[in-house]
């Protein structure tokens, strides 16, 4: 079962439509694994609904009603259909961004056990990327100097503060350092959303930092 959840702050901003698109996508992906947070969001949306119905109504002319009535029979916009190759059982939104299988993505190898694939959300301030860690592999100790959201999509990993499995959502802020290690038995794939680049802290890995400059967009 999912053990680690977004803090209420994030769920509130999510329910209010106030999270940037990349972070919103990460929270949304967590919701598809977590009934508890779905219920929280439903309740947080009720707070939005209660505010909404108390707004001071602004006059709307009948011509607007006429225009809407005239458009009711317009053909409806096409909806995106989930891809056929859904054996990965990914949240719909990610399925759409990945558009195929993990193997079809462009993976950039950073260390022997870590590869990164950057996905495009259009968010100008956040990097939205998949991290693939070989089983038992380690991401060198690093920090961010910003906010990092992580969602485990496949397998699991452990770091200084705990162990994480599919659907778990982890937030780190500021200059916290950590060293994630993929659990034994299978590779680990995580979604990571960053607003500042990853920075390796140990001398022997620092030369890699220029390769990790933030890829927002």
């Amino acid at each position, binding site marked *: 079962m999912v053990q680690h959840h977004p803090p209420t702050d994030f769920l509130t901003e999510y329910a209010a439509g106030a999270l940037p698109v990349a972070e919103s996508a990460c929270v949304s992906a967590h919701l598809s694994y977590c009934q508890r947070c779905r219920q929280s969001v439903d*309740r947080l949306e009720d707070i939005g609904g*209660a505010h909404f119905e108390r707004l001071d109504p602004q006059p709307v002319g009948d011509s607007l009603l006429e225009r809407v009535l005239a458009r009711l029979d317009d053909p409806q916009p096409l909806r995106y259909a989930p891809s056929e190759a859904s054996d990965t059982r990914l949240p719909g939104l990610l399925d759409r961004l990945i558009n195929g299988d993990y193997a079809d993505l462009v993976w950039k190898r950073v260390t022997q056990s870590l590869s990164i694939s950057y996905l495009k959300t259009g968010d100008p301030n956040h990097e939205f990327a998949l991290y693939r860690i070989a089983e038992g592999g380690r991401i060198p100790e690093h920090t961010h100097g910003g906010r990092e959201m992580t969602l485990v999509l496949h397998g699991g990993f452990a770091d200084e503060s705990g162990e994480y499995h599919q659907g778990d959502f982890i937030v780190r802020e500021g200059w916290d350092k950590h060293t994630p290690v993929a659990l034994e038995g299978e590779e680990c794939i995580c979604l990571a959303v960053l607003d500042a680049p990853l920075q390796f802290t140990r001398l022997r890995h620092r030369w890699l930092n220029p390769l990790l400059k933030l890829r927002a967009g």
Partner: protein
Amino acid sequence: MVNKRDASGSPAANGGAKWNAPTGRRTDEWSQALVLVGESQDRGAFTRFFRHFAPLIKAFALSGSSLSAAHADELVQEVMLKVWQKAGGFNPEKAAASTWVYTIARNCRTDMFRRLQKFDTQLAADDFELESEEEESFVVLHTRRGAERVRELMGELPPDQAQILAKVYMEGKSHSEAAAELDLPLGTVKSRVRLAIQKLQGLMEA
């Protein structure tokens, strides 16, 4: 303390009356109208629904004066067309009509902001909505009651908390944007929002 008072009888005090309170009945009227639209494409019900909700959607669009009047009218049209198209998926057992319209208006406004900022994304806010699935019936009941309770209890929030909640929800401001606009430390905004939510949730769960 609040929970205790609540558990000890505040809801019971207006217990039976709660379901007949004006807000409750009004909500039911709009839920029924939505069901009629969804089941039989009833244009009369849709027109009634429009006359009630379009002025609220316009007010929502203009909250924080972030959109022009022309864009606000455009938003009203987009939202009301979505109401027509999606009414079939509305479940009166699961959501209050006002919450349902609010989420559509919120998504349309987010997309409109992104369009106006020439924000290049392949994602629409609707894509973030999960496929609705069958929830356990006790969960449904819980959610439904929660919506009614939250409406009753909003008036009990202290003004400083109510002000920030309104800013976050109606203007779609992040905590840090709200902090900048109100000239408050981010920590203060976060704690006020957290207190308000805790209070509402605590009361809802009581």
